């Protein structure tokens, strides 16, 4: 079915098609219309699910953690400070290996208060053990939500589906909602191996010692460090699983084929711009213009941020003359997180490109196509002079 709806409704439709069984959410701008839509689906009966209108984001994730532990497919969504309020719960969900799916309508973090878009919220949660996927448009939002449930349930790792607040959450775009029976065929019912069950009682998330310890039968059980090592390994291995899921989705629905990064006009180019979210599509206009002027540059969107697709980065960027990383977040006092990750991935390649970092759009600061055009053109002209310090695009005065 073709729809013209907001990004939030695209996400809600994906959740409905995925037959989420327990949904808990606390309203926060710009996520709110997504949860309103889900509560409407549940109230009208088009989605059979438990909708728990919790009193905080911390509790939203608590409901999801507990429901998932009990064997139900759980979903929540949030933005900005709501995501940060969940922080310990995010680590808990990942450590407990629960296949929860959460949408993050990306928004800047206070203080000062901002409701507008940047990526600082989800980027600040990159080290918690969640898989992070970024969607660039409404079609990718709905498709990614459906894929995220399948991915999380295969690898037992929670998945964050991130999309730009307002720029995608509140704008209307045409997209296709797949038929329910085809989604059902793609995404089987959730049936976890371990769940809270009086017939097979077990104690989840108990205190775990630094060292390994035998159980009552004398079999060695892992210590905390083994459990965490397994999480890391499974995160790394989840990239292969994501690749297979993306292929299966492509076969079933005819969309996808770029599970990790999405290059645009990057073949045989000298320079590549890298960015995440809707910015990578915005940048395509700039690339088209610059290519028409003879500047040999392409753009690559990053769709998987955690686990970090370092091999995909090496394949795509090794041998280029320069790489320009444009991002809407940074590690304060250092550099952009994506920039640092890409730089690290490229450290050992033989033909290491020059690499530069460009910070823009924080707290919803308007990103003008002209600004992008000027910045990319200038960077392509003098990549040797850019250095390692982030270049801030669009600053207008100094805060006192």
């Amino acid at each position: 079915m073709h729809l013209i709806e907001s990004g939030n409704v695209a996400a809600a439709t994906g959740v409905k098609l995925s037959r989420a069984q327990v949904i808990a959410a606390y309203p926060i701008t710009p996520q709110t219309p997504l949860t309103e839509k889900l509560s409407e689906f549940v109230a009208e009966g088009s989605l059979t699910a438990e909708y728990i209108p919790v009193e905080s984001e911390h509790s939203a994730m608590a409901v999801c953690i507990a429901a998932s532990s009990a064997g139900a497919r759980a979903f929540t969504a949030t933005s900005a400070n709501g995501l940060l309020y969940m922080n310990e719960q995010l680590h808990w969900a990942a450590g407990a290996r629960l296949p929860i799916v959460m949408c993050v309508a990306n928004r800047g973090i206070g203080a000062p208060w901002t409701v507008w878009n940047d990526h600082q919220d989800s980027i600040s949660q990159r080290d918690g053990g969640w898989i992070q996927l970024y969607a660039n448009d409404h079609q990718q939002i709905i498709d990614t939500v459906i894929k995220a449930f399948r991915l999380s349930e295969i690898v037992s790792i929670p998945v964050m589906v991130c999309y730009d607040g307002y720029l995608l959450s509140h704008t209307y775009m045409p997209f296709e909602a797949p038929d329910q029976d085809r989604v059902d065929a793609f995404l089987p019912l959730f049936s976890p191996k371990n769940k809270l069950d009086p017939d097979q009682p077990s104690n989840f998330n108990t205190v775990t010692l630094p060292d390994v310890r035998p159980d009552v039968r004398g079999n060695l059980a892992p210590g905390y460090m083994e459990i965490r090592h397994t999480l890391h390994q499974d995160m790394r291995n989840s990239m292969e699983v994501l690749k297979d899921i993306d292929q299966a989705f492509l076969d079933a629905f005819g969309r996808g084929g770029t599970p990790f990064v999405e290059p645009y006009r990057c073949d045989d180019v000298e320079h590549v711009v890298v960015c995440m979210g809707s910015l990578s599509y915005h940048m395509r206009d700039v690339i088209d213009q610059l290519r028409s002027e003879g500047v040999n540059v392409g753009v690559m969107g990053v769709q998987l941020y955690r686990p970090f697709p370092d091999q995909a980065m090496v394949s795509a960027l090794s041998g280029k003359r320069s790489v320009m990383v444009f991002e809407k977040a940074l590690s304060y006092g250092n550099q952009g997180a994506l920039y640092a990750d890409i730089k690290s991935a490229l450290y050992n390649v033989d033909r290491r490109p020059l690499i530069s970092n460009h910070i823009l759009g924080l707290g919803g600061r308007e990103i003008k196509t002209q600004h992008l055009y000027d910045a990319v053109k200038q960077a392509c002209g003098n990549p040797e002079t850019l250095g390692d310090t982030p270049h801030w695009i669009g600053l207008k005065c100094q805060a006192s």
Partner: protein
Amino acid sequence: MEQKTRTLTLTEEEFVYPGNRACAGCGLGIVYRTALKALGKNTILVVPPSCLTVLQGLYPIAATKLPCVNVTFASTGAAASGVRAAMRALKKENMNVVAFAGDGGTGDIGIQALSGACERGEDILYICYDNEAYMNTGVQRSGTTPQGVVTTTTPIKGKTQLKKDVPSIVAAHRIPYLATASAAYPLDLFDKVKKAISIKGPKYIHVHTPCPPGWGFDTRYTVKVGKLAVETGLFDLYEKDAEGFRLTDASLRLSGKPRKPVTDYFNTQGRFKSLPETMVADIQKDVDLKWAGYC
């Protein structure tokens, strides 16, 4: 009136193994063992960090024969809501979903999630075992630490503030069943847990739980100390439901009779050693006033 459980009619089946990691004389040991007997097999437990986390054992060994999910400190009420939602979604209606938390996890860091669950009318039983301080981390003051008590964060002079009345806060949510109980009266606790799980909606039981190392008394006096709290009228056993408020068990028997002076209770425990005479007199006056209101 329903039949009261007696020692001879108490369920024999145990759901927590002996030899668990509770301290000697632990009041929670009595509370947990008794409550689980009343709950029976069809139960899922939700536990935040607390003494109970330790009692239950270290991975991969657990003392409890029921499924249990350990959750973050502030999230117990919400997590229990999540288990219940999953039970509804999976059509497993005949399951007791029971939160088991300490006083800090209930009345301090966990009060928001508990309040949310009560307001939403979640079909859960929340049992708070109140040992009147953060015992698991080494006896720091909590909201339910009584006035005058010396803890590691109220040293020398003791706590200056009053004990937070958590059951009254919960009662303000007008839930269908609320009770207080004591580790010293396990049969009364057993009957209250049984009654609670027969009722739909949020249920709350607040259990006074003596703690030998935290309160400063010999491990053999757990029941004696618990009983003195009731016999002096400091901690009252009651129920509150659609039919209203009523004293129960030992507190009901105390009604209209002379109570032991509060000093009988204070003198049994090292934690009251800094309690000044004037404060003792004030506390006795408060207790007398409270009991005058019961008659």
